[in-house]
């Protein structure tokens, strides 16, 4: 179980998260939905150890890992795919993958399997990161994090700005990744993609969780998302 307990996060003087408690259990697909600036990315970064917590705790399987630096969080099975993907532009697609291979012990997800998950990537393996299209970069970013064989995969708006055919490929991939045993936290701005995948939903607004619930109570949440600021 990966959790945040009562967490405050600041960017300088501005408070981005207020008393957030959030958890992901093994096997879950959890959706976090909110507008731009609501704190979705910040919450993911806090979960992944990529941002410090001013108050509260981060826990992994009961162990407090609040101060654990992000490279150690990575080694403990937490992987974050940021919204802007952050592909290494001066490396080829394949080198982006190889980097993670040399840093982590082998597991279910190998380069082979990852290329089977995203065949397009196999075709573009020798291309420089900087020359990949948005969809290819997104697939590469997910593939790259997968090679660490994470227990928890945190995806920040993985379908944003992508063509429907690629969105479908990514949805299928997320489903398979989850079936292979990786828990997923899926951040999006609306319900469209998450409702196809997630088994639990959270709504976030201005750094606070305003609603949480299972798919059968989603209608309550939809109103909240439309109505506006809480």
């Amino acid at each position, binding site marked *: 179980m990966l959790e945040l307990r009562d967490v405050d996060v600041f960017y300088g003087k501005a408070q981005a998260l207020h008393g957030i408690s959030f958890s992901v259990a093994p096997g879950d697909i959890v959706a976090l939905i909110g507008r731009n600036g609501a704190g979705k990315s910040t919450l993911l970064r806090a979960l*992944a150890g990529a941002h410090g917590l001013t108050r509260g705790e981060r826990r992994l399987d009961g162990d407090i890992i609040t101060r654990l630096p992000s*490279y150690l969080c990575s080694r403990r099975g937490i992987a974050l795919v940021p919204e802007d993907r*952050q592909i290494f532009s001066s490396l080829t697609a394949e080198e982006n993958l190889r*980097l*993670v291979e*040399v840093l982590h012990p082998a597991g279910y997800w190998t380069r082979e399997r990852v290329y089977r998950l995203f065949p397009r990537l196999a075709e573009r393996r020798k291309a420089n990161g900087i020359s990949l299209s948005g969809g290819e970069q997104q697939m590469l970013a997910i593939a790259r994090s997968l090679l*660490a064989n994470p227990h928890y995969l945190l995806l920040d708006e993985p379908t944003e700005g992508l063509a429907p055919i690629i969105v479908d490929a990514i949805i299928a991939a997320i489903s398979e990744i989850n079936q292979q045993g990786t828990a997923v936290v899926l951040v999006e701005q609306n319900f469209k993609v998450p409702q196809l995948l997630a088994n639990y939903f959270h709504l976030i607004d201005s750094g606070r969780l305003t609603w949480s619930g299972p798919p059968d109570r989603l209608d309550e949440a939809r109103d909240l998302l439309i109505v506006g600021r809480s």
Partner: protein
Amino acid sequence: MSTFVIGLSIAMLLFLLSAGLTLIFGMLGIINFAHGAVYMLGAYVAYQVAATTHNFWLALCVTPLVLAVVGAIIERLVLRPIYDRPHEFQLLATFGLILVLEEAVRMIWGLQLRSIATPPGLSGSVHVFGTDISKYRLFVVVFGAAMVALLFFGIERTRLGLILRASSNNAGMAEMLGVEVGRVRTAIFALGTALAGIGGAIAGPMLPIQLQMGFSVILDCFIVIIIGGLGNIRGAVAGALLIGMTRAYGQQYAAEWIDIATYGVLVVTLLVRPQGLFGIRLRTA
């Protein structure tokens, strides 16, 4: 012909120093003003080992190891605490290092000029293509070329090189994927310092070893890496060749114009291609 070889040998020396400087900038984002002082330290350390053991080759092997340790210590004690601070801190810190290193060298070795004897077998000259070419300078060229090859191979083909390239490109993301970026920074600084040390050792038999030797060379190094593109090793090779040749041919044919020629190359490059010959144009965020 001999001017050509001299130009190449200057280029190799410049490359050894510039490679370290550009690697350090590419990875750490720091302009290491102390790089010239480290080169000087390398020359003195090499001098000491050579004087004590009467073995230049031993000096050439030991110096980079000693300098690597010095570099690692500097990175952890002086630089690590100030990465997040404004650039002025780094400027002052590396400048301060120059003063510390110079004083340390002065205290240990005093003010008199030192030199390293040319190793036996490499003294004198060979007669090729109708001219006399210094054997030692030929060695410097060959050795430099070997170092270029080694560096390229190391960076492009090894796992360590892959980690280094990724970390230089995006340290934050590298860290999220599992790279211990702090250690990479220390390693890069140590490597850059070791390369400067090798430069100092190589320069020993060619140039007078004295406290100011760092100053005269560091300016050329900055020109080299600006021309070549900050953070780019290929650029460092190209820049070093350009400046090395300018210096050598300038000395031979128009000594009063050397500096103007050298800075002229810099100015032209900045006008035509400000990101450097191999640099990438950065979009302003």
